[in-house]
């Protein structure tokens, strides 16, 4: 049996009486391209929070490459290659685009214990940061402050930071949300160009994106996994369609369905 990149079993999380994760199980093989869909409030972002360590589960177990990380702090999960992005950009607003990525590169390279050599002369680190910016078509903005670049670019920068951390498992929380349509393919190309052994879990509403990206889809409803399967199968499922019926996501969902 091949070892799973990320495995979660029996995750529970409640905020008061409100169950946001109810016995959620999820596994990503190495190289997985998995989408996480579900109506608003289904607990998708919560699940990413539990996996990445920004939230603590009330019960359940999470393991990364066979190693139990349920109790590990965020930073140590990141060091082991479990990296997430945020739905709402959460970056270093006053710093430039290059500096944002530099922080991640420097931390990843273990350079942040260096108190002596100027960061600006660390060509090795700066070149790595610039290569990542190049890949996400952000090179032209590299000396602009994060707060000054367009929203779409901020979303791409969020991905750039994640890539700088050399992820083995990448959790993307609605990476395409708010990106102008023509830039979505920049994002998807960047994701597609990642080494195949990286396992990726992406929250995404747009079924076009899901179909293009994913080989497997998890559907989350009311904190529970409703179904798992290949995209075409899941989208054809009457249960899943029923969940989306009347939801705001309906039109987008229908848009991605076969024959639509």
């Amino acid at each position, binding site marked *: 049996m091949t070892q799973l990149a990320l495995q979660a079993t029996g995750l529970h999380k409640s905020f008061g009486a409100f169950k946001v994760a109810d016995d959620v199980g999820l596994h990503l093989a190495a190289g997985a391209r998995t989408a996480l869909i579900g109506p608003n409030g289904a607990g998708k972002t919560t699940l990413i929070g539990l996996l990445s360590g920004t939230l603590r589960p009330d019960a359940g177990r999470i393991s990364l490459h066979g190693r139990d990380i349920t109790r590990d702090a965020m930073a140590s999960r990141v*060091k082991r290659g479990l990296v997430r992005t945020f739905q709402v950009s959460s*970056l270093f607003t006053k*710093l430039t685009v290059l500096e944002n990525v530099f*922080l991640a590169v420097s931390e990843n390279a273990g350079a*942040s214990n260096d108190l002596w050599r*100027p*960061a*600006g002369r660390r060509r090795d680190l700066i070149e790595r940061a610039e290569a990542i910016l190049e890949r996400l078509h952000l090179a032209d903005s590299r000396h602009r402050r994060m707060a000054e670049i367009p929203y779409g670019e901020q979303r791409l920068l969020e991905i750039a930071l994640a890539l700088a951390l050399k992820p083995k498992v990448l959790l993307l929380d609605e990476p395409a949300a708010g990106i102008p349509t023509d830039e979505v393919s920049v994002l998807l190309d960047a994701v597609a160009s990642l080494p195949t052994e990286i396992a990726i879990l992406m929250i995404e509403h747009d079924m076009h994106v899901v179909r293009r990206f994913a080989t497997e889809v998890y559907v989350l409803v009311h904190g529970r996994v409703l179904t798992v399967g290949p995209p075409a199968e899941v989208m054809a499922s009457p249960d899943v369609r029923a969940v989306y019926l009347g939801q705001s996501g309906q039109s987008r969902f229908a848009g991605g369905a076969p024959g639509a």
Partner: protein
Amino acid sequence: MSGAESPFLRRHHLRPVETVWWLLALAFFFAFPEYLAVATSVLVMALFALSLDLLLGFAGVLSLGHAVSFGLGAYVSALINLAGWHEAFSGALAGGAASGLFALLIGPLILRLSGLPFIMVTLGVGAIVYEAANKAVWLTGGDNGLPGVTLDPLFGVFRWSVYGQTGYLYVLGWLLALFYLSRRIVASPFGVALQGVRENPDRMRLVGAPVLRHLVAGYAIASTMAGIAGALSAQTNAFVGLEVLSLNTSIDGLVMLVLGGVGRLYGGLVGAPVYMFVQHFAQQWNPYYWMFLIGGLLIVIVRFSRGGLLGLLDSVLRRIRPGGAG
């Protein structure tokens, strides 16, 4: 944007303007030999404000108890001196080491806090240490302080005269060395990470940064520098009194830094002389109400420039010479 927020990947570039401050400090030595004793205490406070800048300006940690580090260094170096060790440099280093060690001990406990709780805890620690020193008369001399700190001639040659020539250059030398060190640290990958922590600690955790460890390291460095400043104060005044540990000392350092400009390293170096100069003349003008002037100055500076006097200077220079000032 002001120079304080200039891209930190370029921080290591030395600007010619910077030499002005150091040349003035050296010129002062020759121009005003009768004021060297006062000027020495200005340099000591500049060093203290610089250490506070590392903490507040770069790590984003606001402490109201930084005088603890200053006072600890002062007392430790004085006690070592009174015990019979009269060499100056090692005495100052011992004071710094004591304060650095203190920071390594309490840092991991208190730096888990942030915002108002942290500020209150630093205030509390400051008050406790002050009262403890007040009570421990056998060790600190209590209200009477510790007089009689005497030093061997510097390098075996330069005697410590009442005019304070040796003291002034000695402290200026320390300031230059520690300023250079601060500059290196701030521009290093560690310094960059520290500024990342200042901007967004949660996000730093999610790039895998050991935020608490970074903060403790930053605090230990700042505390060591404050301890050395305290030791220099004890050595050049030949005396340590309780006021080195007082809240006033913490506040003075903070006000000097804010006056000069937080987060630009030169903030304390500019703020300290301005503050002490204004204080000196305001006290002559009116010995009772001089704080009016300081308060007014602080309000005006903070109101018109977020970057302190240096921020003001930046924007004036930029207006004269667009794109030129740094």
